[in-house]
């Protein structure tokens, strides 16, 4: 399994760079690593709100929320989420929050 080394930490990731250990392996260094990868200048409260909503939802449901639910709960339209996370809610925000990649007809 590929690994990523960042600021003294080693993370196991899948082929697309999603964190394998889930919430247990998730930490500030991971967030900073994805931030750098995503080319995000500065993490704001708005980024954190999205991350928190994703993590809370995942803990309850075991999957990422529908994009519409993410928009409604955060109050951010999809366009805004793309501004915050240039790779989008899945590859950007979910990755930073430590969620796995979605599967199936999606």
């Amino acid at each position, binding site marked *: 399994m590929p690994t990523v080394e960042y600021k003294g930490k080693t993370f196991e990731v899948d082929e697309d760079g999603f964190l394998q250990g889930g919430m247990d392996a998730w930490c500030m260094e991971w967030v900073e690593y994805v931030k750098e990868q995503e080319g995000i200048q500065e993490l704001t409260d708005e980024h954190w709100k999205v991350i928190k909503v994703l993590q809370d939802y995942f803990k309850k*449901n075991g999957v990422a929320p529908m994009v519409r639910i993410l928009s409604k709960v955060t109050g951010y339209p999809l366009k805004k989420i793309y501004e915050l996370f240039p790779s989008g809610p899945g590859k950007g925000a979910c990755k930073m929050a430590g969620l796995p990649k979605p599967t199936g*007809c999606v």
Partner: protein
Amino acid sequence: MALPKPDELLRDVNYDRMPAKHWMDTKPEFRPGAYCYAGKPSVVEELGLPFPREWQPHDEDWKLPPNWKEIVLNAIKDRAERFRSFKLFMDICVRCGACADKCHFFLGTGDPKNMPVLRAELLRSVVKGEFTRSGKLFGRLAGARKLTEDVIKEWFYYYYQCTECRRCSVFCPYGIDTAEITILAREILHEIGVNINWILEPVRNSAFIGNHIGLQPHTIQENIEFLLMDIEEITGLKIEVPINKKGAEILFVTPSADFFAEPGIYTFMGYVLLFHYLGLDYTISTYASEGGNFGFFTTHEMMRKLHAKIYHEAERLKVKWILGGECGHMWRVVHQYEDTMCGPAPSNLEVPKSPITGTVFEHAKSTKIVHICEFTADLIAHGKLQLDPSRNDNYVVTFHDSCNTSRGMGIFEEPRFILRHVVNNFYEMPENTIREKTFCCGSGSGLNTDEYMEIRMRGGFPRANAVEYVHEKYGVNMLACICAIDRAVLPPLMNYWVPEVQVCGVHELVGNALVIPGEKKRTTDLRFQPLKGVEEEENV
């Protein structure tokens, strides 16, 4: 690797170029974008499939089991004995070439091994070389070769570069069904632990949770309630969707993406509005919460295992018959394997009969499963629906025949009949790209994964090309389809090749057009887009 720009992608395609070497001497190149990731060991293990291990197709060493060759040869022998179709297809090809340019992957890559004749030959040559006297004696002269690790890699590359769409078989004078060859080749590869994760993880989720996405019961309920709030906002109607209701007349089974991902969720809203309009006594199940069946892309046994849940649930909930949603390969399974592998249907099921029109669906006498387009077309034919097609006037629509429902079971007319009643602007794509000659979306049979994007954009090119034709000629801006893989993969395909065109399910358009007693005057469609004329009206 970033995806090349659309005008650069197909530059390397040259159908006239003769390969420099004999096909048996060329090897596939496992470069990013041209293969799918291998099954994760945990997923393979949980499914009880053989040889879970860490490996990737780009590795030199695939860590095959020591006796891999023996396993594969036994598997070929076993399948040849069990499946007469396989034995026949390995025998009868005359290399007439009718199939050669019919494959979307050949058209999008120019790779000769994507000609269906050669795709089958990849396996046929080994059958000859390992099992026939002429092959053993004359080798390459007789079109025969030995089984090697390079052959396994080549099989993996090309049998996962076939979407089992069966367009080639329409043109084959012998009726050779390359899809069946691909299905069996993948099944054989599974025996030595060669597989892809994008298929196996949904299979695992479906087997252990109930659907490909891994939606648990409370999540399904929450998602549906969320969509019902949207419906209320748009129509003013308070609707309930029965979940796991015992004794309902009908069990409704649809792909799980319909209650998770755009644009499937709009299709789901369409179903729900229709059922409300009819006062239908139905239920959704959180256990049989998946119409799709990635098991069908794995092995026959896995297909049966996943499909069995639908009948189990129909029995447990004591419904009378089953209504299936807009799904692709679900229908191939229902139509072609239901009686032989998945049946017989539980005894509480009856021959499906529409409670609204009284139509008895005789063709579903043994399976007890009716396609929602058959159901809705029957309602329209009996004048049971009040429809206002002008609510879809923002859209100029064309219809993509999903391979499995068109070639797999002959659903050609029903969706078109529905579309002609729910939209005012409907145009067909060219004749050789629709109905039984439809071009695949390029990502079917479980290849709809992101890491495979380059091949998907190549394979989807012929479909996109036909869409572009009607877009330019008639201003088509909406591509309707009746398959969840289509709804997942056609948006990125359109975005790449014809960005002006959106994608929807047929029942989304039904939901827009349906004039429902008690609803408020609609100002937007199910996507919250203003209806045509509304903005101008409000500005007056």
